[in-house]
């Protein structure tokens, strides 16, 4: 579009009288939500043509438009709407990428591993317990680093702990992550101390340690159980973290995302511990991973297909690519686990693929929410529909009230 008026028609062309939305163009495919608004608008529509603030790479349908172009390919039919020069309405989250998606992944993997580790402690699976506890501690410490790194003022991380706010998932999350990382580190730390060389080295600093060795297994098990108590919340609270925002494609799926993350966490935690542990002890990991995959695939289908326009970002662009890749990795990983999970090679391949699938699921969900903030259509159209539905509901209620009076 090079001329201000796009297709060069005179301002106020009759074709634009009714389609007052900035993007109407001559096609004028009115949506249900748009029609009643037209009458109140007095025939006004935005003058002028090309929207220079919009990224030029976006594909457009049709020859021209009246600014505010929002006509990129969509799986939902293009609806017309107005916007301020096509500019986004809500802000794009400032969270760093890939730090935050990786944090989401590590939190899930650590959460599942901690529960696996604690239960393995008491069911005679020492290798699984060891690996799960190390995995949980490593991932939890990684989470802490990523979360602090994401802050604009990392040195103020402890400000997170000066209040507790149930209305802030990040505050609640801080109170989940802090004890969780402390307990997982304690369990892993005690486990390290039980190794003879480590104990010898540590004794040079703390000479009283050998006297305490008989308490170490109990301390380790207690820490592992305490960590496991925070393992479940650690895996799912991050879904609330994303959903409790104004990013439309995150908020819309707020009752489904926690289950997606729970499933993804089980696939990741099960997969990682399965890959690290001899097959004889890794039965619970395999079962956990497979159940997680089933839950994840079932719930992600609802997220991707159940929300009309707001599901669209999960299919398009970078998010769509990641989501598709995640599904491929997850399904392949699950197949390896189910068929070859009782061989060492199969377990390693399957577990790695499951973990990779979980990483990409988190990245895909993250990118989809980001994308949904960048186009005003994801704000305006659903909110307009919500208003229209509410109005219709009120009209029905009024009718009913009237008929009752009569």
């Amino acid at each position, binding site marked *: 579009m090079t001329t201000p008026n796009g297709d060069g028609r005179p*301002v*106020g062309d009759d074709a634009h*009288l009714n389609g007052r939305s900035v993007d109407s163009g001559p096609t004028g495919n009115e949506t249900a939500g748009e029609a009643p*608004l037209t009458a109140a*608008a*007095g025939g*006004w*529509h*935005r003058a002028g043509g090309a929207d220079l*603030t919009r990224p030029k790479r976006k594909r457009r349908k049709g020859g021209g438009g009246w600014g505010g172009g929002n006509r990129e390919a969509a799986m939902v039919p293009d609806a017309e709407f107005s*916007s*301020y020069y096509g500019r986004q*309405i*809500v*802000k794009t*989250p*400032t*969270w760093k990428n890939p730090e935050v998606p990786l944090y989401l992944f590590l939190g899930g993997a650590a959460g*599942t591993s901690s*529960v696996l580790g604690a*239960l*393995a402690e008491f*069911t005679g699976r020492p290798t699984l317990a060891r690996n799960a506890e190390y995995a949980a501690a490593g991932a939890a410490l990684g989470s802490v680093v990523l979360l602090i790194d*994401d*802050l*604009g*003022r990392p040195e*103020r991380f402890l*400000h997170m702990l000066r209040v*507790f*706010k*149930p*209305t*802030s*998932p*990040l*505050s609640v999350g801080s109170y989940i992550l802090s004890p969780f990382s402390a307990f997982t580190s304690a369990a892993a730390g005690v486990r390290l101390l039980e190794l003879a060389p480590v104990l010898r080295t540590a004794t040079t600093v703390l000479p009283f340690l050998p006297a305490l060795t008989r308490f170490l297994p109990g301390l380790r098990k207690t820490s592992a159980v305490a960590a496991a108590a925070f393992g*479940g919340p650690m895996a*799912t*609270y991050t*879904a*609330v973290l994303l959903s*409790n*925002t*104004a990013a439309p494609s995150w908020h819309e799926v*707020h*009752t489904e995302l*926690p289950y997606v993350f*729970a499933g993804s966490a*089980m696939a990741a935690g099960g997969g990682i511990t399965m890959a690290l542990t001899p097959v*004889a002890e890794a*039965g619970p990991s395999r*079962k*956990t991973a497979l*159940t997680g995959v089933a*839950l994840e695939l079932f719930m992600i289908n609802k997220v991707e297909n159940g929300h009309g326009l707001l599901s669209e970002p999960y299919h398009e662009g970078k998010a769509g690519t990641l989501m598709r890749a995640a599904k491929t990795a997850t399904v392949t990983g699950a197949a390896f686990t189910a068929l070859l999970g009782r061989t060492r090679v199969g377990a390693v391949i399957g577990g790695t693929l499951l973990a990779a699938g979980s990483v990409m699921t988190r990245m895909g969900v993250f990118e989809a929410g980001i994308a949904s903030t960048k186009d005003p259509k994801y704000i*305006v159209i659903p*909110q*307009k529909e919500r*208003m229209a539905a509410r109005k219709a509901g009120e009209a029905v209620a009024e009718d009913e009230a009237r008929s009752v009076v009569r």
Partner: protein
Amino acid sequence: MTTVSSASPSLEGADSRNRLFGPLPDVSADAGYEEDHPSRVGFFTDTSVCIGCKACEVACKEWNTLPMDDSHGVLDQMGMSGMSYDNTGMLGANSWRHVSFIEQSRAVDLPMPTFGAPGADRHDHGQPASAISPQADSGLAAQTSVLNAEALSEFDPQTTVTGGAGDTQIRWLMSSDVCKHCTHAGCLDVCPTGALFRTEFGTVVVQGDICNGCGYCVSACPYGVIDVRKDDGRAFKCTMCYDRLTDGLQPACATACPTQSIQFGDLDELQARADARLATLKSQGVETARLYGRDESDGVGGVGAFFLLLDEPEVYGLPPDPIVTTRDLPAMWKAAATGAAMLVGVVASSFLGRKR
């Protein structure tokens, strides 16, 4: 005078009704202020008399010493947005007032008199000459005096006729956008440090020495107001000049506004004034006028800074039906708790059965 609670409202008090959304008669009391707190203040921005002078933007930048940025929030950049007279572009960490400019046109097959030179169609209404200049063309005078109720009855205040074209009419919508200081503020709800707090005036302010730049408020604001300043790392937004309010002054933008488009005062008083203004405009035939953010039963419980608009909110870059994201938080926590229990249950059950 009072104690400030930056902790979550839902932690205190027994009444769980309307703590997360819906009308709230006294936001300051809800935040923990005692009975003697000042009444809630706000802005009423009447865009029908905004002339787009940007005095509010300048006054705000000056008073709050906000850094320069371009229309995309890039610091220390000067650049034209290329879309209108609006080179501020958006609200953000460095722009706490933003005047939007929308040029609109319509064809004039509407029930209107014939058109000639600007204002020529006003002659036949017998409008008495304005006090500003008795000799002047009465239509021109009516257009000059936009605050004159008589003049308003003659035409949509921001309407003019394109000279010579003859078949179209052009109007400019100008609106000074600002932080809404919501009754249920998403930014305040999600802030994990307590840096954002409710003032005794019912406004929402960031404490710069507490904010650790987590950016959650940025994602939570349904209006896209608050943002993180890149080189600083912390979040910034309109404070409704908290420093000035505590000294009995009006906010800088309202003080600078030459047309009283930005009115500052006690919120209930402003609401009454806005209702009256809307009724006046409606009676004068400005059918497109509507109040935005006035309705206390909306998704954010009404806002402290509300607007009189002449078109749909989205035309001005405002969300048509904003909701505070924490309205749905109980459902989210429930799903997360169920998901967490499911995870533990699945892992536990995977240990059952034969030991392999």
